[in-house]
């Protein structure tokens, strides 16, 4: 069985529990073992604007903790992923930085030698588990569901550092969305930023960018936007709701987390997937399940017939 150190970061446990619960459920179904390392700290992403050294130290400390356990890291957040990847890259490329960071980590009995890999949930699903395996576990599929797949900047770029997928014409996430039977639509702003990095710093600009992107998705015919990152999702969910009320607009493009989408087709209980925890309701998504396979239909018919017989019998 594959095993990873699960890197949740700060945002998911504090503000997006449904992403954690749905991810754990999906990965359990796909036989991926998860190890929780309690000593993990901030990935360093929000600190990068402030102080490079603090960022690198925070990030590298996590890598060192995972390396100590000999585990590859799996991040659920794309910003965590990007930061950990960047730190991993720098620690491997830059010997003097590595020495400096390790000297500080040493005080806690830690060091990072670069023997592990950092992966995002999506790359694990696509590369380690594989589309075919996932297909084999499907309980039901969607039909006529149109998804605007959102890649997320920090997973795609800088490609030299992250190596997630082709940065100009990626397909990894589209394939993962389509395995559920949904259609991953073409939309011009697919690879643009969600706007979250500026939320709280320049809200007006952040809102402009988010709205532009979501409007584009809607115009291109999407029913839902789908993300696999807490920042992107919160931006598309809670922040979208704030934008709509502030700008007096209706008709949102609701956001579904990828693990919720996949979880539904894997037949995982929607309570565990936390569907009702999204700020903009997504419960309508279940109406787009493909019709039940004939076999079950026949079974139901047979049951109905029996019921009828029984009631007739009791009448007599």
């Amino acid at each position, binding site marked *: 069985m594959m095993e990873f150190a699960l890197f949740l970061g700060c945002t998911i446990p504090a503000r997006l529990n449904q992403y954690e619960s749905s991810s754990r459920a999906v990965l359990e179904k796909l036989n991926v073992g998860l190890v929780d390392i309690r000593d993990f700290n901030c990935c360093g992403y929000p600190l990068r604007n402030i102080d*490079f050294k603090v960022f690198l130290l925070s990030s590298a400390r996590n890598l060192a903790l995972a390396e100590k356990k000999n585990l590859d890291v799996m991040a659920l957040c794309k910003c965590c992923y990007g930061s950990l990847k960047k730190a991993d890259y720098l620690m491997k490329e830059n010997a003097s930085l590595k020495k400096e960071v390790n000297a500080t980590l040493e005080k806690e009995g830690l060091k990072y030698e670069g023997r592990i890999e950092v992966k995002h949930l999506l790359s694990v699903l696509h590369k380690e588990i594989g589309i075919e395996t996932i297909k084999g576990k499907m309980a039901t599929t969607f039909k006529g569901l149109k998804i605007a797949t959102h890649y997320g900047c920090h997973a795609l770029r800088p490609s030299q550092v992250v190596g997630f997928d082709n940065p100009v014409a990626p397909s990894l996430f589209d394939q993962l969305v389509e395995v559920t039977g949904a259609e991953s639509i073409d939309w011009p702003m697919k690879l643009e930023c969600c706007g979250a990095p500026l939320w709280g710093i320049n809200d007006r600009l952040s809102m402009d960018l988010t709205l532009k992107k979501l409007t584009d998705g809607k115009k291109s015919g999407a029913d839902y936007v789908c993300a696999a990152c807490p920042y992107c999702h919160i931006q598309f969910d809670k922040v979208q709701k704030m934008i709509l009320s502030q700008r007096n607009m209706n008709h949102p493009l609701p956001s579904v987390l990828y693990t919720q989408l996949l979880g539904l087709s894997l037949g995982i209980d929607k309570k565990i997937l936390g569907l009702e925890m999204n700020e903009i309701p997504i419960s309508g998504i279940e109406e787009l399940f493909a019709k039940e396979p004939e076999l079950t239909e026949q079974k139901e018919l047979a049951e109905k017939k029996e019921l009828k017989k029984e009631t007739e019998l009791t009448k007599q």
Partner: protein
Amino acid sequence: MFLSTSLYVALSIFGLGLLYKISTWFRYKIGIQSIEIPTSERFFSALKGILLTVFSPKILTLLKVFVLDALLQLRILKEDLLRWVMHICIYGGFMLLLLMHALDKYITVAIWNNYYSTVNPFMFLRDLFGVFVILGVAIAIYRRFILKVPRLITNAMDIYTIIIVAVIMFSGIFLEATKMVAYSDYQRMVNEYSGLSDPQELKALEAYWVKEFGTVSPNLKEPFDEKILAQGRDLHQSSCVECHAKPQWAFAGYGTARLISPVGLGVDRARLPSLLWYLHVLACWVGLAYFPFSKMFHMFTSQLSLLANSVMEKGKSSPANIATRQVMELDACTHCGTCSLRCSVAVAFDEIPNINILPSEKIASIKALASGKKLSPQALRNIQEGVYLCTNCYRCTLVCPVGINLQDLWFNVRETLLQKGYPEFFALSPLSFYRGLMREETVRKDYEKPLIRAREAIAAECDLMRKKDKVLPLTPTDRKFQGGLNLSAQAKTFSVCFGCQTCTTVCPVVGNYENPQEALGLLPHQIMHAAGLGLRDLAFGSNMLWDCLTCYQCQEQCPQGVCVTDVLYELKNLAIKQVREKTLQPMERK
């Protein structure tokens, strides 16, 4: 006389201190919501809240929390077994000693009317509880000074607590031991209770006590004749046994008595028992009088915090009660350091020497802040920076053994401090994401002020941005500034920029504006150019720097391989560092 006078003095200080402390819970203000609520409203609101809770089904929650978290302290056990053993030893031992031994006249006697401190099980239990406390204190010292638990900082309050508890315990045990060896105490008891006058009998009893009870006699020495001992035993049975169990049961005192018996006569002659008695009693009085102002106060407040937090909820409980609870929580903090151990960003303290980064240390600063004490601008900014350097991950709140809602505390303090008008440069980072999500809970009209203020403070340091007509000398370039862009190798790449403007063309932020230069100042390619020319002011003073999404479109598409986003990152770091140094204390590296 001395005993009662000193006790009343200590008790009145304790009582007044308690009243004073409790009054601060209603008077001190933390957070913008509490400013408008008068003390009287907070007081009556608390009374009402307590009554309504006690006479509602919530009482069951309170009982559960009291047993599991306050008495059994399961929240500590969840964190760390050794710490739980330590705390249960100190807490359990101390409370039981307090009830059974210190308040024996009122409690123990009332329950067991045959109570004597020198008979079993009381004699044994007293020593057992005392040893528990000493064991706990020893573990505390071990954790703090030998094991050196990460980020566990020891302050004066912690040292006082360890010392006062240790003094009370050791003086008690030594008092017991010296009384065992003291001949004059033995004689006093014989005179008062035995009614013996026959010298032969007196000698026999004394011999028995020297042999069996550790008394050090100036007249008799072991070994004794069997016959005498037998006679002594008989006398003991008739006169003493009712009030005196075998001293071995008081194992800590007896062990100590054995150790000091070679100097037993000197101990008695110097009247050490009475000296130790004064020390023991006075230490207890000092502990009592200082209780409301010391860490020991948490014996009371931590339970209150656990109970209050189990039934209060943001949005549902009245703002007046939340304001009161938040001040009370400051007194409930035991400075145990769990929050700092689990804090997501505490590791930043290794690079930025601001103690307020550590949650456990922030509390002390916030106490000073809440009390209305005049703090220097530098102290205020240090606290502000400390509360801003937080990813709002809630971990501190989840792990706090006394259930303090630290997350809400940080939020309130943050918003209050931001109103004071000092620029907070950390606000220009994604740490502000949470503040954006909580914007409805900030003072709406002032929400953007801190963000504007930080940008303005940086722009104020960039003269060139304001002198648009000034002709720029191209030599000599600011090599120091260029050389400063060296944190990661990526940032050095600005020098190969040939000005094709691809970065600016693909930038979604630039694309968002009709007239980008008006909104953003220098655009990405111009910033690369400014860096190349060493024009620090132009690079730092542009809004573009702070409005960068870090989406890496520019960097990905640069035909020259300039790491545009990374250069922007480093420029931000440098700008913050330089402006921060100018306006705050130097950001030294340790």
